């Protein structure tokens, strides 16, 4: 049995392996930790400066904390009338989702990602056992969870939450990391490629989120919370009668998933997964006529997955929009809520408007992934073969941009129709036209971020990923939390998200949209020209 070779691994090998794994994950961990720290600092400090008196906080708690729509996003509030209780709700809920995504990405990257690249074969060709590789991966995942725990703890403590309470709340968030990393590691054993592992793991995490969302919003389904790590983080009840015994659940789940992954890893062929892909197929000649066609062919799976997920989300969000009600909310509290960057979300349509803007962020992420795929084509040097044929460079990049834009349009529609259907099911009157308009309203800002991503890709190909995702993340975070910092209006207006009209609640802002599109067109044109003039750049 292969596992027995672990004892023969050279003594110096494991530290070297662990070091390598930590370095592999360092960028993702550092960025996530940074976001965690900032976010968990701004929320409690902003809350305590805006809602100074207990009366204000109670008013807020009644109006805001009981909204089902917000529960879906942020999770179940236990006590939002105190700073720590508010932090537990606003910080814990959102960061648990962040922790789940981080865990999944790192879990897949350190297992199937390494294997897919062929590097694992090189490592295992040295006198190193498979078990040692597993240990190194575990060490890196554990370190990542601890780093995120420290980041959140530090942010909360700096924001005025007691250290003990902050440590427990941060721990609740951090428990999500190992569970989802184990999901990623297991997906990495099943799938024979990194892309498929991410799809499997991503699907699983989406279901885990859905379970938590249902548990928090639909009466009588609270027990579903026990089925998902995002629910366990809530059941730990930070600042609301802590239940530390619940910790055993994520520990047991992680151990179980990892044991299963380890068992599969010890016995299978390196480079293959438990699921087999066919090695041969009949020729399918559709979409082979141009680089655009091939890109569409290769991205089809991703496009279907994105469309399906966003459509399901929009439908679900639509159905629960009815539970949002402006009753008992004073004008002043509504104004304060607006300051939280979420617009006037105390009415069903206001809530839907906010959700459309959130879906818009996802569509922006999607176009960034499309430019990322174009970059991957270049980094893997396949683009050299394409461009050595009589195929122009500008035309190639223009094709990729056009594909991203068309797909974004399809996604926008895929949000509008099911959101309308969901709202109708839930009993909220929203016209289909209005709903589609709300979907289309996302397109100018999507075009803007597509332009920025294309420009980053043309100007600094190796940094295009960090730049495009970074600008997008900072812009949206600033929109969410900027007002809490008391920054002046002009500084708040820096983010393009401040300039979208929240359709259907607000009118479509034509001028802002035109400006965004104009910037996008200029950025795209400059990108095409820069790309024509630069060297192709490999890994």
């Amino acid at each position, binding site marked *: 049995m292969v596992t027995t070779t672990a004892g023969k691994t050279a003594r110096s090998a494991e530290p070297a392996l662990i070091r390598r794994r930590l370095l592999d994950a360092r960028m993702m961990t550092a960025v996530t930790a940074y976001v965690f720290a900032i976010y968990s600092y701004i929320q409690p400090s902003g809350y305590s400066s805006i809602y100074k008196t207990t009366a204000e906080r109670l008013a807020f708690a009644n109006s805001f904390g009981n909204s089902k729509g917000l529960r879906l996003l942020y999770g179940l509030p236990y006590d939002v009338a105190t700073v720590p209780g508010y932090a537990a709700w606003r910080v814990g809920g959102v960061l648990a989702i962040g922790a789940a995504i981080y865990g999944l990405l790192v879990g897949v990257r350190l297992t199937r990602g390494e294997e897919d690249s062929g590097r694992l074969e090189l490592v295992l060709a040295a006198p190193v056992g498979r078990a040692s590789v597993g240990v190194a991966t575990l060490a890196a995942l554990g370190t990542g969870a601890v780093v995120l725990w420290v980041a959140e703890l530090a942010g909360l403590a700096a924001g005025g939450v007691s250290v003990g309470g902050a440590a427990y709340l941060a721990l609740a968030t951090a428990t999500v990391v190992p569970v989802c990393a184990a999901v990623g590691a297991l997906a990495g054993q099943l799938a024979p*490629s990194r892309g498929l592992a991410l799809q499997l793991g991503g699907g699983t995490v989406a279901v885990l989120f859905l379970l938590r969302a249902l548990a928090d919003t639909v009466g009588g389904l609270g027990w579903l919370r026990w089925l998902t790590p995002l629910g366990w983080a809530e059941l730990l009840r930070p600042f609301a009668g802590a239940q530390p015994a619940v910790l055993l659940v994520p520990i047991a789940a992680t151990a179980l998933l990892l044991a299963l992954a380890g068992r599969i890893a010890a016995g299978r062929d390196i480079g293959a997964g438990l699921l087999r*892909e*066919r*090695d*041969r*197929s*009949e*020729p*399918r*000649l559709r979409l*082979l*006529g*141009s*680089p655009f066609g*091939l890109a569409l062919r*290769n991205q089809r799976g991703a496009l279907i997955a994105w469309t399906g997920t966003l459509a399901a989300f929009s439908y679900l969000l639509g159905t629960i929009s009815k539970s949002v009600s402006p009753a008992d909310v004073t004008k002043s509290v509504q104004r304060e809520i607006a300051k939280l960057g979420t617009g006037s979300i105390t009415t069903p349509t206001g809530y839907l408007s906010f959700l459309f803007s959130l879906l818009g962020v996802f569509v922006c992420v999607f176009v960034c992934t499309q430019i990322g795929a174009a970059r991957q084509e270049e980094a*893997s*040097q*396949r683009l*050299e*073969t*394409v*461009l*050595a*044929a*009589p*195929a*122009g*460079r500008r035309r190639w990049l223009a094709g990729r941009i056009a594909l991203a834009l068309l797909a974004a349009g399809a996604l926008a529609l895929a949000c509008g129709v099911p959101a309308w259907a969901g709202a109708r099911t839930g009993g909220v009157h929203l016209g289909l036209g209005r709903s589609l308009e709300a979907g289309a309203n996302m397109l100018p800002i999507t075009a803007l971020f597509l332009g920025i991503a294309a420009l980053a890709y043309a100007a600094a190909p190796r940094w295009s990923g960090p730049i495009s995702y970074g600008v997008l993340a900072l812009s949206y975070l600033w929109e969410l939390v900027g007002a809490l910092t008391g920054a002046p209006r002009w500084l708040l207006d820096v983010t393009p998200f401040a300039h979208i009209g929240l359709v259907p609640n607000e009118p479509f802002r034509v001028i802002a949209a035109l400006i965004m599109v104009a910037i996008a067109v200029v950025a795209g044109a400059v990108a095409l020209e820069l790309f024509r*003039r*630069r*060297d*192709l*750049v*490999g*890994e």
Partner: protein
Amino acid sequence: MAAIQTWELSKRYGDTLALDRLELTVEQGEVYGYLGPNGAGKTTTIRLLLGLHRPTSGRAELFGIDAWADPVGAHRRLAYVAGEPYLWPSLTAGETLEFLARLRGPDGVDRAYRDELIHRFELEADKKVRALSKGNRQKVQLIAALETRADLLLLDEPTSGLDPLMEVAFRHTITEAKERGQTVLLSSHILSEVEALCDRIGILRTGRLIEQGTLTELRHLGTQTVEATFAGAAPALPPLPGVHVTGTAPNALRFEVQGEIEPLIEALAGHQVLTLHSREPSLEEIFLRHYGQEPDGHHDGGEDRSQR
């Protein structure tokens, strides 16, 4: 009009000079062997010829078309085989050929010839690229380039990963291409292949073309080895210019002759020579001699850097 012509073509990556004022001319119909150790700048040259990288200075023309200014125009007349077979893992070999063919327009390739090549190289066209070995991926690239019957073939180590049988098939195919009048730039490490196929050879070293000519011309520059055995003890010969003498046995001498051989023959004439064996330098010896030399200026090789 030459198939390839460069004027002081140079490329710098950061502070590394990967290609230093290359003056290269490859006439139409010629098979040109492009030799050089790893990192000498062979791949850099090809990327500049393809307009994938921009020259730091100088320029290159293919059939009179500027490689950087009008890459698409130039590419209509050439086909390329990359040093590494990076292809799309989810496509089958056949789908890959079809995609690369369609990039050239409706009548870009000779489909009958493709089928012949698939047969000749024993390619399993229904197999996914993901499941192909490196050598088999290389075959996909080769067939994709050869089926175009392009006027110019830019081949960057095209036989890496091929087995000896496929190597034979490759040589056969290039000989056919030559007979049809196609021009070939063959960058290679396999000296027997270059020796067998190429009309002219250029040797690149740390970004500079240090030697160029037909094989005969290069041999002339190299050292000829003459071994002589004598009836009695080996004689003491007077020092001869360009001749290096070593004793290999009491009655035998070996001469390494640079340049004209006549003075040596004259010097040996007065002695009782039993056997005289003369051997021309192989391409390998010429090549190794150039590798072993100290560079006559400071230049850093840059091919590795260009793999970024």
